[in-house]
């Protein structure tokens, strides 16, 4: 009984982690950007979906769409207002650009967080679930919303896989992650590829944010922990490796759930962080890292 409970709850949370981390790792893989405003973009999506539903009184589906749209807009704003100016700058030496992007996106994330707290308070917000009610799975009373979350996450990840491996645009993105110079030589505009990647990223982060808002709820305080959780999952899986992130998301998700059930909910995140430290010692490139 408890094993089933862990299996079901762990799956939903892991799938959500996976979706959140996929976009994060994709951006890094293709353009070498570690976007530390990741958590802020997810929270912005969830809060927008909440505000649309409870202030503007739109229906749940439309609210969710607004949330994802806000995430895409915020992702583009991150790219055009923060990342691109740093990458294009002639005054910042090339070898320092990564650290500038890191700092820039971190500050940008804090700005978004403070704006959200200012306009919508730092209270936790929960998005009204698209599907309500519970079903019985092998004796475990499971909210339909939890199943919905897991299904949507898997579906979106599958679509992403198809996009990257089966479409022309996707192949260009893949090529850019392997050899940016080669792609330029083939006559493809690198900037256009980046725009596509940031759009995909915005959609992924938006869906993850809205689902998180429905499943657990978010507040402006969630910004830091969400970025940290995506960051540690991605580092654990191997920076830039999408499949590594997926595996790492499930490792972290289940480790947390098992700890919460069998040890204490108070120590939930500790084992996953210890694992991260251990992996850093033994295999610094992460589980499926390329280096």
């Amino acid at each position, binding site marked *: 009984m408890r094993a089933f*409970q862990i299996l079901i*709850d762990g799956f939903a*949370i892991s799938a959500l982690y996976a979706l959140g981390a996929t976009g994060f790792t994709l951006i890094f893989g293709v353009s070498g950007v570690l976007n530390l405003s990741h958590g802020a973009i997810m929270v912005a999506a969830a809060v927008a979906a909440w505000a649309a*539903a*409870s202030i503007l009184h739109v229906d749940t589906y439309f609210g969710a769409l607004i949330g994802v749209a806000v995430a895409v807009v915020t992702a583009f704003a991150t790219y055009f207002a923060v990342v691109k100016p740093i990458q294009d700058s002639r005054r910042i030496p090339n070898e320092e650009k990564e650290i500038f992007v890191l700092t820039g996106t971190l500050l940008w994330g804090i700005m978004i967080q403070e704006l959200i*707290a*200012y306009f919508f*308070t*730092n*209270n*936790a*917000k*929960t*998005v*009204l*679930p698209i599907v*309500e*009610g*519970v079903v019985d799975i092998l004796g475990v*009373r499971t*909210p339909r*919303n939890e199943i919905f979350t897991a299904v949507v996450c898997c579906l979106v990840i599958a679509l992403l896989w198809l996009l990257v491996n089966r479409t022309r645009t996707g192949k260009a993105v893949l090529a850019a992650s392997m050899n940016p110079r080669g792609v330029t030589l083939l006559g493809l505009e690198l900037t256009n590829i980046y725009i596509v990647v940031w759009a995909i990223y915005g959609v992924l982060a938006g869906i993850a944010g809205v689902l998180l808002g429905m499943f*657990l*709820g978010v*507040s402006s305080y*969630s910004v830091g*922990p969400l970025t940290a959780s995506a960051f540690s999952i991605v580092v654990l899986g191997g920076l830039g490796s999408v499949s590594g992130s997926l595996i790492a998301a499930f490792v972290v998700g289940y480790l947390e*759930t098992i700890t*919460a*059930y069998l040890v*204490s*909910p*108070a120590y*939930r995140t500790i084992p996953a962080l210890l694992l991260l430290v251990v992996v850093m010692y033994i295999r610094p490139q992460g589980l499926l890292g390329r280096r």
Partner: protein
Amino acid sequence: MKNILPGALRIFLGAAAFGALMTGSGAALAADSIKIGVIAEAQAIAGASIPQAAQLAADEINAKGGVDGRKIEIISYDNHSSSADSVRAFQRAVNEDKVNAVIASYISEVVLALEPWASRLKTPFVTPGAASNEISKSVHADYEKNKYTFHGYLTSAALALSVCDAAKDLLVEKMHMKTAVIMSEDAAWTKPLDVGYEECLPKIGLKVLDHIRFSPDTTDFTPIFNKIEGAKPDVIITGISHVGVQPTVQWKNQQVPIPMFGIASQATNETFGKDTNQAAEGVLYQGVSGPGVAVTPKSVPFAEGFRKKYGNYPSYAGYTAYDEVYYIADAVKRAGSTDADKLVDALEKTDWEGTIGRVQFYGKDDPFTHSIKYGKGLITGLMLQWQDGKQIAVWPKDVAKVDIKFPSFIKLSN
């Protein structure tokens, strides 16, 4: 002394004194006002009502001519729920803005950090919402030093008593419940609360089957609710303040069949309904007052006035903060001065009928020195329930208009 000061410093001090004179004379009228600093969690669900309610009280007092012709001026500071920010705000309030008294915070950790500063800066300080027993115990332990701090809300010990008193009537006698699980967040205020619960619940006939303390950072409450359900209690007794929206929404989404009853600070604010998408339905929480509940003749007019001005009913800390401005003003009037020590003496003699009951403070020889007195004829607290999107009093009998009712997923075992 003068001779020891180097020339430059003397000139500087002279200039500073001159500057002070200039601003002093320039603001001759304002200097007459009684200044109250309000340091609060303006962005948090329970704290947001504090500066709003204080301002409302000041406006009312000023509209009636102030205190002996002196206006009340509220200077508020947002502490972002941080102790460090609060300490800085306290220093600024006293040293630069020259406040005569401070009303601050609903978080015990913040109040405990401010308490030594009230002593150092000799400034009367009242908290409208923190609960930890340690606040008033420190006053008792070192009265001369800490006498500047007043606890304008019930101690955790009193809160536990209030919950147990209500549980005895509502849960044990009416619904014949026999077992409970305590679910509380890990924070300074819940330590004495849990001790109080563990002691009084068995006395009223509720056996404590399990006791779950969780980190206030918890976002996923699924394992906690599943663990509680496994113990098969009749009721969950809560002690939550930093969290509120998330456990409540997950309780509803997972259809946990056990009612929640106890302290839930966030549920005291009317905005809680919207923040949880009405998942609060059926939640039972302890309060010192509530919308439409005539604890005293002042309660309802205040709640309605607050709603008219700010759009929602106040949280519990709104009621207390409102009363505090009034009884500080009353103390200034009785003391005939804003001198800190005289004000402390006057505050100790407070006997004020506010929105939450009759406010008096425990004396020097009581273990909870300077905390408000709990009991019949003073302050007993209420039990309220979210019903049809509204906060309704269900206990005690003399103010309760309706019976408890639960959403359909709650399965009462008796």
